[in-house]
Protein backbone atom coordinates (compact mmCIF):
# COMPACT_ATOMS: atom_id res chain seq x y z
CA UNK A 1 0.00 0.00 0.00
CA UNK A 2 1.21 3.52 -0.77
CA UNK A 3 0.04 6.55 1.22
CA UNK A 4 -0.23 8.62 -1.96
CA UNK A 5 -0.73 7.68 -5.62
CA UNK A 6 2.45 6.29 -7.14
CA UNK A 7 2.42 9.08 -9.71
CA UNK A 8 3.04 11.53 -6.86
CA UNK A 9 6.07 9.57 -5.70
CA UNK A 10 7.44 9.30 -9.24
CA UNK A 11 7.33 13.08 -9.54
CA UNK A 12 8.93 13.44 -6.09
CA UNK A 13 12.03 11.54 -7.23
CA UNK A 14 12.26 13.55 -10.43
CA UNK A 15 10.50 11.26 -12.91
CA UNK A 16 7.60 11.96 -15.19
CA UNK A 17 4.35 10.89 -13.55
CA UNK A 18 3.93 8.25 -16.28
CA UNK A 19 7.47 6.83 -15.95
CA UNK A 20 7.18 3.42 -14.27
CA UNK A 21 10.88 2.55 -14.58
CA UNK A 22 11.58 2.87 -10.84
CA UNK A 23 8.32 1.65 -9.39
CA UNK A 24 10.01 -1.28 -7.68
CA UNK A 25 12.45 1.03 -5.85
CA UNK A 26 9.62 3.41 -4.95
CA UNK A 27 7.57 0.57 -3.52
CA UNK A 28 10.57 -0.71 -1.52
CA UNK A 29 11.39 2.73 -0.12
CA UNK A 30 7.75 3.40 0.72
CA UNK A 31 7.25 0.03 2.41
CA UNK A 32 10.41 0.63 4.44
CA UNK A 33 9.28 4.13 5.40
CA UNK A 34 5.90 2.89 6.59
CA UNK A 35 7.56 0.03 8.47
CA UNK A 36 9.98 2.40 10.22
CA UNK A 37 7.09 4.69 11.14
CA UNK A 38 5.24 1.68 12.54
CA UNK A 39 8.28 0.54 14.54
CA UNK A 40 8.94 4.01 15.89
CA UNK A 41 5.31 4.59 16.95
CA UNK A 42 4.42 0.96 17.71
CA UNK A 43 1.45 1.59 15.41
CA UNK A 44 0.33 0.70 11.89
CA UNK A 45 -1.03 3.56 9.81
CA UNK A 46 -1.96 1.90 6.52
CA UNK A 47 -5.60 1.00 6.07
CA UNK A 48 -6.80 -2.52 6.82
CA UNK A 49 -10.46 -3.48 6.91
CA UNK A 50 -11.09 -6.41 9.20
CA UNK A 51 -7.59 -6.52 10.58
CA UNK A 52 -7.05 -8.78 13.58
CA UNK A 53 -5.02 -7.91 16.65
CA UNK A 54 -4.49 -10.49 19.38
CA UNK A 55 -3.49 -9.36 22.86
CA UNK A 56 -2.47 -11.67 25.68
CA UNK A 57 -2.62 -11.14 29.40
CA UNK A 58 -4.74 -8.02 29.16
CA UNK A 59 -5.77 -6.36 32.37
CA UNK A 60 -6.91 -2.94 33.44
CA UNK A 61 -9.27 -0.29 32.19
CA UNK A 62 -7.80 0.42 28.78
CA UNK A 63 -6.20 -1.25 25.80
CA UNK A 64 -4.23 0.62 23.14
CA UNK A 65 -4.77 -0.77 19.64
CA UNK A 66 -1.86 -0.93 17.27
CA UNK A 67 -3.68 -0.04 14.08
CA UNK A 68 -4.56 3.65 13.85
CA UNK A 69 -6.88 5.49 13.47
CA UNK A 70 -9.70 3.09 14.32
CA UNK A 71 -12.94 3.52 12.38
CA UNK A 72 -14.81 0.75 14.11
CA UNK A 73 -14.37 -2.43 16.07
CA UNK A 74 -16.00 -5.31 14.24
CA UNK A 75 -15.65 -7.73 17.10
CA UNK A 76 -13.81 -8.35 20.36
CA UNK A 77 -13.69 -11.87 21.72
CA UNK A 78 -11.91 -13.27 24.78
CA UNK A 79 -10.15 -16.61 25.06
CA UNK A 80 -13.44 -18.34 25.98
CA UNK A 81 -15.03 -17.00 22.76
CA UNK A 82 -17.22 -14.65 24.75
CA UNK A 83 -18.02 -11.37 23.08
CA UNK A 84 -16.70 -8.39 24.97
CA UNK A 85 -19.11 -5.53 24.46
CA UNK A 86 -18.88 -3.43 27.60
CA UNK A 87 -16.48 -0.82 26.31
CA UNK A 88 -16.30 2.38 24.38
CA UNK A 89 -13.71 3.33 21.83
CA UNK A 90 -11.67 6.49 21.60
CA UNK A 91 -11.29 6.64 17.82
CA UNK A 92 -8.84 9.53 17.92
CA UNK A 93 -6.54 7.79 20.39
CA UNK A 94 -7.04 4.18 19.32
CA UNK A 95 -7.70 3.25 22.93
CA UNK A 96 -10.44 0.91 24.13
CA UNK A 97 -11.87 1.91 27.50
CA UNK A 98 -13.48 -1.05 29.26
CA UNK A 99 -16.61 -0.16 31.18
CA UNK A 100 -15.50 -2.56 33.88
CA UNK A 101 -11.78 -3.15 34.42
CA UNK A 102 -11.12 -6.51 32.86
CA UNK A 103 -8.61 -9.32 32.96
CA UNK A 104 -8.28 -11.41 29.84
CA UNK A 105 -5.97 -14.30 29.13
CA UNK A 106 -6.33 -13.54 25.45
CA UNK A 107 -8.29 -10.92 23.57
CA UNK A 108 -8.91 -10.96 19.81
CA UNK A 109 -9.94 -7.61 18.34
CA UNK A 110 -11.04 -7.19 14.71
CA UNK A 111 -11.02 -3.61 13.50
CA UNK A 112 -11.47 -1.39 10.50
CA UNK A 113 -8.60 1.02 10.85
CA UNK A 114 -5.80 2.95 9.20
CA UNK A 115 -5.48 5.68 6.60
CA UNK A 116 -6.45 4.92 3.02
CA UNK A 117 -4.36 6.16 0.10
CA UNK A 118 -4.54 9.94 -0.04
CA UNK A 119 -6.01 10.25 3.46
CA UNK A 120 -2.81 10.49 5.48
CA UNK A 121 -2.74 13.79 7.40
CA UNK A 122 -0.26 16.44 6.32
CA UNK A 123 2.05 16.09 9.31
CA UNK A 124 2.35 12.32 8.86
CA UNK A 125 3.12 12.88 5.19
CA UNK A 126 5.97 15.23 6.13
CA UNK A 127 7.37 12.53 8.43
CA UNK A 128 6.82 9.90 5.73
CA UNK A 129 8.58 11.90 3.01
CA UNK A 130 11.62 12.50 5.22
CA UNK A 131 12.09 8.76 5.65
CA UNK A 132 11.09 7.92 2.07
CA UNK A 133 13.69 10.36 0.68
CA UNK A 134 16.38 8.85 2.91
CA UNK A 135 15.48 5.34 1.78
CA UNK A 136 15.50 6.32 -1.89
CA UNK A 137 18.95 7.86 -1.40
CA UNK A 138 20.12 4.66 0.27
CA UNK A 139 18.86 2.64 -2.70
CA UNK A 140 20.54 4.97 -5.18
CA UNK A 141 23.88 4.91 -3.35
CA UNK A 142 23.96 1.21 -2.66
CA UNK A 143 22.99 1.50 0.98
CA UNK A 144 25.31 4.36 1.85
CA UNK A 145 23.12 7.38 2.41
CA UNK A 146 25.00 10.64 2.80
CA UNK A 147 23.41 11.20 6.17
CA UNK A 148 25.30 8.18 7.50
CA UNK A 149 28.72 9.62 6.72
CA UNK A 150 30.43 10.56 9.98
CA UNK A 151 33.70 11.83 8.62
CA UNK A 152 35.59 12.23 5.38
CA UNK A 153 39.36 12.05 5.07
CA UNK A 154 41.22 13.27 2.03
CA UNK A 155 44.79 12.01 2.22
CA UNK A 156 47.37 14.81 2.61
CA UNK A 157 44.55 17.34 2.95
CA UNK A 158 42.67 16.60 6.16
CA UNK A 159 39.55 15.21 7.79
CA UNK A 160 36.11 16.74 8.18
CA UNK A 161 33.90 15.30 10.91
CA UNK A 162 30.17 15.75 10.54
CA UNK A 163 29.32 14.55 14.05
CA UNK A 164 28.56 11.05 15.17
CA UNK A 165 25.40 9.37 14.04
CA UNK A 166 23.17 7.47 16.39
CA UNK A 167 23.55 3.78 15.75
CA UNK A 168 20.16 2.97 17.24
CA UNK A 169 17.08 2.44 15.11
CA UNK A 170 16.24 6.10 15.70
CA UNK A 171 18.94 7.13 13.23
CA UNK A 172 16.83 5.68 10.42
CA UNK A 173 14.05 8.07 11.38
CA UNK A 174 15.24 11.65 10.75
CA UNK A 175 14.88 14.16 13.61
CA UNK A 176 12.00 16.05 11.98
CA UNK A 177 10.10 12.80 11.50
CA UNK A 178 10.77 11.85 15.11
CA UNK A 179 9.34 15.16 16.30
CA UNK A 180 6.16 14.57 14.31
CA UNK A 181 5.81 10.87 15.08
CA UNK A 182 6.26 11.37 18.82
CA UNK A 183 2.68 12.67 18.87
CA UNK A 184 1.47 9.44 17.24
CA UNK A 185 3.22 6.97 19.51
CA UNK A 186 1.03 4.24 20.92
CA UNK A 187 0.65 4.36 24.63
CA UNK A 188 -1.48 2.81 27.33
CA UNK A 189 -3.75 5.39 28.92
Amino acid sequence: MLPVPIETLRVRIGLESSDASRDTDIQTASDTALALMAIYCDRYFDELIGGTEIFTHVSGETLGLKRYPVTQIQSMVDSNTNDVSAYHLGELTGIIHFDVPGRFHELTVVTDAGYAEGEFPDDLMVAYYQIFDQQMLAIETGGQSASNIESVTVADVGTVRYGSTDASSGSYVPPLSQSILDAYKRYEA
Partner: protein
Amino acid sequence: MSLHQSIKDAQYDAFDRLSVGVTWTQAKAPNATKDIRVGFKSLGWRDQELINAYGIGAKIFTVKVDDIPVIDKFDKITLNGEAYTVNSVMPAYVGDMHTYHKVIVNGK
Protein backbone atom coordinates in the same frame (compact mmCIF):
# COMPACT_ATOMS: atom_id res chain seq x y z
CA MET B 1 24.47 7.54 -8.14
CA SER B 2 27.20 4.97 -7.56
CA LEU B 3 28.86 4.47 -4.19
CA HIS B 4 32.18 5.64 -5.62
CA GLN B 5 30.58 8.79 -6.99
CA SER B 6 28.98 9.57 -3.62
CA ILE B 7 32.36 9.05 -1.87
CA LYS B 8 33.99 11.33 -4.40
CA ASP B 9 31.31 13.99 -3.84
CA ALA B 10 31.76 13.73 -0.06
CA GLN B 11 35.53 14.00 -0.44
CA TYR B 12 35.24 17.02 -2.73
CA ASP B 13 32.92 18.66 -0.20
CA ALA B 14 35.50 18.08 2.56
CA PHE B 15 38.28 19.18 0.21
CA ASP B 16 36.56 22.51 -0.47
CA ARG B 17 36.40 23.21 3.26
CA LEU B 18 40.05 22.40 3.93
CA SER B 19 41.85 23.58 0.81
CA VAL B 20 43.76 26.78 0.06
CA GLY B 21 43.58 29.04 -3.01
CA VAL B 22 46.50 29.00 -5.47
CA THR B 23 47.19 29.84 -9.07
CA TRP B 24 48.24 27.11 -11.45
CA THR B 25 50.33 28.06 -14.49
CA GLN B 26 50.95 25.68 -17.34
CA ALA B 27 54.61 25.39 -18.37
CA LYS B 28 53.91 24.50 -21.97
CA ALA B 29 52.06 26.62 -24.49
CA PRO B 30 49.42 27.96 -24.30
CA ASN B 31 50.69 28.69 -20.73
CA ALA B 32 47.19 28.59 -19.32
CA THR B 33 46.55 29.82 -15.80
CA LYS B 34 43.71 29.03 -13.46
CA ASP B 35 42.82 29.93 -9.88
CA ILE B 36 42.03 26.73 -8.03
CA ARG B 37 41.93 25.34 -4.53
CA VAL B 38 44.44 22.71 -3.44
CA GLY B 39 45.47 20.68 -0.45
CA PHE B 40 48.87 21.85 0.81
CA LYS B 41 51.13 19.69 2.91
CA SER B 42 54.76 20.09 3.92
CA LEU B 43 56.42 16.71 4.27
CA GLY B 44 57.15 15.70 7.84
CA TRP B 45 58.87 12.94 9.75
CA ARG B 46 56.33 10.36 8.61
CA ASP B 47 57.27 11.02 5.01
CA GLN B 48 60.93 10.05 5.32
CA GLU B 49 61.07 8.19 2.02
CA LEU B 50 59.60 11.14 0.16
CA ILE B 51 62.00 13.51 1.92
CA ASN B 52 64.89 11.29 0.89
CA ALA B 53 63.68 11.48 -2.69
CA TYR B 54 62.58 15.11 -2.91
CA GLY B 55 64.52 16.87 -0.15
CA ILE B 56 63.70 18.57 3.14
CA GLY B 57 60.89 21.06 2.72
CA ALA B 58 59.30 19.22 -0.20
CA LYS B 59 55.56 19.80 -0.55
CA ILE B 60 52.57 17.79 -1.71
CA PHE B 61 49.78 19.65 -3.43
CA THR B 62 46.52 17.76 -3.87
CA VAL B 63 44.62 18.97 -6.92
CA LYS B 64 41.14 17.98 -8.03
CA VAL B 65 41.11 16.37 -11.45
CA ASP B 66 37.83 18.15 -12.11
CA ASP B 67 39.73 21.47 -11.79
CA ILE B 68 42.85 20.61 -13.80
CA PRO B 69 42.53 17.46 -15.91
CA VAL B 70 46.26 17.28 -16.71
CA ILE B 71 49.22 18.62 -14.74
CA ASP B 72 52.75 18.25 -16.11
CA LYS B 73 56.25 18.50 -14.73
CA PHE B 74 57.50 22.12 -14.64
CA ASP B 75 54.01 23.57 -14.27
CA LYS B 76 53.93 26.16 -11.49
CA ILE B 77 51.69 26.51 -8.49
CA THR B 78 51.76 29.92 -6.82
CA LEU B 79 50.72 30.16 -3.19
CA ASN B 80 50.89 33.49 -1.35
CA GLY B 81 53.27 34.86 -3.95
CA GLU B 82 55.67 31.93 -3.76
CA ALA B 83 55.94 29.82 -6.89
CA TYR B 84 56.50 26.08 -6.66
CA THR B 85 57.64 24.09 -9.67
CA VAL B 86 56.07 20.69 -10.19
CA ASN B 87 58.48 17.78 -10.05
CA SER B 88 56.24 14.72 -9.99
CA VAL B 89 52.54 14.06 -10.53
CA MET B 90 50.86 10.90 -9.26
CA PRO B 91 47.21 9.93 -9.60
CA ALA B 92 44.85 9.16 -6.69
CA TYR B 93 41.68 7.19 -7.16
CA VAL B 94 38.31 6.52 -5.57
CA GLY B 95 37.53 3.07 -6.90
CA ASP B 96 38.36 3.36 -10.57
CA MET B 97 37.67 7.10 -10.73
CA HIS B 98 40.72 9.34 -11.06
CA THR B 99 39.86 12.06 -8.54
CA TYR B 100 43.11 13.83 -7.54
CA HIS B 101 46.58 14.62 -8.72
CA LYS B 102 49.20 14.28 -6.02
CA VAL B 103 51.70 16.92 -7.05
CA ILE B 104 55.15 16.92 -5.45
CA VAL B 105 57.51 19.85 -5.55
CA ASN B 106 61.16 19.62 -4.54
CA GLY B 107 62.56 20.79 -1.26
CA LYS B 108 66.23 21.42 -0.63
